[in-house]
């Protein structure tokens, strides 16, 4: 009886997230079709959805598994550059098929990267783990900076740190040009496709969290020693969460890349990892709904702050610091709670009078 009640409560929470995503999709789809949207915001729709996927997937590592990862953008870039290669390699197929296969292969390769990186990383604890994920993020960026990929009639050509080693036909096309990044990407990503991916990611994560495996992961987070003595292998479950999260970041990267015509590896540096971490922490660690909302608002916020022009990133920083202070300082939090209570009382009183 008890477990049934608990399960239904959790699924309600999960349902809210699906509803948010669907409402988000419908609202913007209507706005786009009626033309009531600025072109700047319209161009942001796919990146916003990608950042939502990033935030949710990082939340799996930071919130559910309890490990701080500072290199999430690295996995995103693995997915992104894989997608660029795959989508060009299957140039004759239909666009949805190319998008689907690109996302899939991008996710798989990012997952493999996550698994390989997880082997050394997950042996460490706390801040040391964080710095190693940061280091891996930078290493991935550096390696992609040295990667040259071209395509001609014979197929794909790869070269490392030396663009002349590609050995292509004169008619061939360079896809990834080292530090210049990917050029001439076919923009096949759609908002609908991105939202479907977001829903799939949410379904996977929420079902994982509510499963036996998810409870094992959270048990390790809450008390590693107790979990270990219950026969749960920390390495196995941490690795599982880390790999799934990396694969999801890769899928987000794939959609993200196919929304632009050019993309440089530098786009996925440390600052992007931090940006996603900010979404997770501001939305509430372990809270998927919060991640979705925070990612949505914070990606749009610089656009909304346009009227501050040069000062917008400064205002963004101040907003970030103030939100952290208000939500985390005990005194300020207490005052905010009292204020919220008063507002609620007033609203309920007003309701009674009517």
């Amino acid at each position, binding site marked *: 009886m008890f477990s049934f009640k608990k399960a239904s409560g959790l699924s309600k929470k999960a349902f809210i997230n699906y509803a948010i995503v669907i409402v988000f999709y419908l609202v913007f789809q209507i706005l786009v079709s009626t033309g009531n949207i600025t072109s700047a915001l319209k161009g942001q729709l796919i990146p916003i959805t990608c950042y939502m996927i990033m935030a949710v997937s990082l939340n799996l590592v930071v919130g559910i598994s309890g490990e701080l990862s500072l290199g999430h953008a690295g996995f995103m870039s693995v997915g992104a550059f894989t997608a660029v290669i795959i989508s060009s390699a299957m140039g004759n197929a239909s666009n949805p098929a190319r998008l689907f296969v690109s996302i899939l292969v991008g996710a798989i390769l990012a997952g493999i990267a996550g698994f390989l990186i997880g082997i050394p990383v997950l042996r460490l604890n706390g801040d040391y783990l964080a710095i190693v994920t940061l*280091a*891996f993020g930078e290493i991935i960026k550096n390696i992609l900076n040295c990667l040259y990929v071209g395509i001609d009639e014979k197929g794909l050509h790869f070269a490392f740190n030396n663009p002349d080693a590609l050995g292509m036909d004169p008619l061939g096309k360079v896809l990834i040009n080292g530090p210049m990044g990917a050029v001439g990407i076919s923009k096949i990503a759609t908002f609908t496709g991105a939202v479907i991916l977001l829903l799939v990611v949410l379904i996977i994560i929420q079902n994982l969290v509510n499963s036996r495996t998810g409870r094992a992961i959270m048990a390790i987070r809450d008390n590693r020693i107790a979990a270990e003595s219950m026969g749960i292998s920390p390495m196995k479950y941490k690795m599982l969460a880390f790999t799934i999260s990396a694969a999801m970041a890769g899928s987000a990267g794939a959609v993200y890349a196919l929304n632009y015509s050019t993309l440089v590896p530098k786009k996925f540096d440390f600052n992007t990892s931090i940006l996603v971490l900010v979404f997770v922490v501001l939305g509430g660690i372990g809270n998927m709904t919060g991640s979705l909302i925070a990612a949505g608002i914070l990606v749009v916020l610089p656009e909304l702050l346009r009227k501050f022009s040069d000062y917008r990133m400064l205002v963004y920083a101040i907003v970030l610091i103030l939100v952290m202070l208000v939500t985390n300082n005990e005194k300020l939090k207490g005052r905010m709670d009292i204020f919220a209570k008063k507002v609620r009382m007033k609203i309920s009183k007003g309701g009674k009078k009517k």
Partner: protein
Amino acid sequence: MLANLINGISLGSIYAIIALGYTMVYGIAKMLNFAHGDVIMVGGYVSFCAMMYLGFPAPLAVLLAMIVCTTLGITIERLAYKPLRSATSLAVLITAIGMSYFLQNAALIIWGANPKAFPNMFKNFEAIEFAGARISPVALVAIIANVIIMVALTLFTSRTKVGKAMRAVSEDKGAATLMGINVNFTISLTFAIGSGLAAIAGVLLCTAYPTLMPTTGSMPGIKAFTAAVFGGIGSIPGAMIGGILLGVIEIFARAYISSELADAIVFGVLIVVLIFRPTGLLGKQIHEKV
């Protein structure tokens, strides 16, 4: 070979000075001060303005930069970090990142995005020939400054009362409070010392690599943080060893392997070290108790 080694040690000395700021703050407040790299940048800009616009002589400009950065460090600590003393470490981390954004964007508005060419303050001195290698005056000054700072800090933390208080706070805040140590003052002092050192590092960094931008501090900041972890975060000699090793590895990777991959190699070495010594070279091994 020798020239590369000396260049590496000098770059490493700059990293070590920055890493000290990270390691001391981490040791005492258990937080990663992400804004530290940007304090370096502010130090660079302040000394730049003092020399170029106000016509200050170099030593006075460095002093001014130190004063401004120390004040800035204390202000940041009071406004942003102190209210979060009892919050989770992630919350403090995000606040520090917010502070880092703030400093970078404030610098962008004040000084603009165009890189500034930092004046060479050692133009009256010539490079020294040593065993066939040319050593630039900046390299020499960086190494000497690093040694002086290291000795002074070691003496400060082991001999003076305030330094001992600092160590006590980093060991156990509660017990230190009971012993009559003013914890808030001690933490502020740590930030002040760290930021003052950041100013020196900023001037040295900008003299050695004379382009000054609002993002100048972020990559050296990350590398210095890596150096601090490398040597064992929280340990002062660890920061020095980590910094110098990192600098030497970086210069050698750049000279003999590939300048594109130098950063990847630096971070790769860090990962290998952490696999075999999970708390850094000189870090304390803390054993878990059930």
